[in-house]
């Protein structure tokens, strides 16, 4: 089999990193950063999601390009859903 077996050490490193980021996001939420609090929380969450996808879900090691196409498409559809909805609601003038 040409399948890549990822060293256990990589998994442990990612695990520790995810736990640190979890602690970080809970801690940083208690500091007043104004509107940046939400931005920081989402950046940390997205970093966590990214390393789960790349390492735990093996996307970094896959040779199948279609997998990446599917992931990027799914995120693109999600952005359409969220962004166009907000364009709609954001430009309505409620009394």
């Amino acid at each position, binding site marked *: 089999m040409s*399948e890549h077996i990822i060293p256990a050490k990589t998994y442990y490193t990612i695990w520790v990193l995810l736990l640190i980021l979890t602690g970080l996001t809970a801690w940083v939420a208690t500091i007043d950063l104004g509107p940046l609090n939400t931005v920081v*929380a989402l950046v940390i969450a997205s970093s966590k999601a990214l390393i*789960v996808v790349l390492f735990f879900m093996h996307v970094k090691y896959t040779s199948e390009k279609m997998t990446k196409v599917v992931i990027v498409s799914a995120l693109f*559809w999600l952005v359409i859903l969220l962004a166009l909805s907000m364009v709609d609601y954001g430009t309505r003038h409620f009394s």
Partner: protein
Amino acid sequence: MEQQKDAVTLGMWLFLATEIMFFGGMFCAYLIYRNWYPNEFAAGSRSIDLILGTVNTAVLICSSLTVALSVRAAQMGKRMLLVGLLILTMLFGLAFLGIKGKEWYDKYKEHHVPGASFDASDIAREYPQIPIDESHEQIFFSLYFAMTGLHALHMIIGLGIFTWLTVMAWKGRYGPEYHAPIEIGGLYWHFVDIVWIYLFPLLYLIDRKPLK
């Protein structure tokens, strides 16, 4: 076999793409209402238990580690290690649901479940700096229960899948040549973990700054 495994993995990712849209609808509702009622979301978020939420996030991350290691155990043909890691994953999953159940029960006791007996006056009293409207506060808690509920439902389905995987692993069905079910079952589990990675800051960490 290699090609079959690639096809199976791709199919799973396509399913996960539909799942992203499934949860996406809820995140969209969340986004719109949070923009309309920022105060109610801030106060509601403060009333949820931060410690339990953080612990639960860590529990799910640990379960994702054991899932990743179980794929590795299958690749190396270590049957007993695989079975052990799958069981450990399910224990983490059950611990998550237990903690989640405790949080829901607390909300039930506090009358924070949307419905006829909903009462957010305790939240208004606790955070007088944040003016809230009771009916809008119900919308926050409706979204809280809908989103964590849908996530918990996925966890329960995941536990079902992993029970089946454990039985098959025990029977010695998986090894270096064939372990696609472990791989795609794992993809599902990691996906559910990622949904929680977003739910945690969006529900628990909206407004934790010291109040002025």
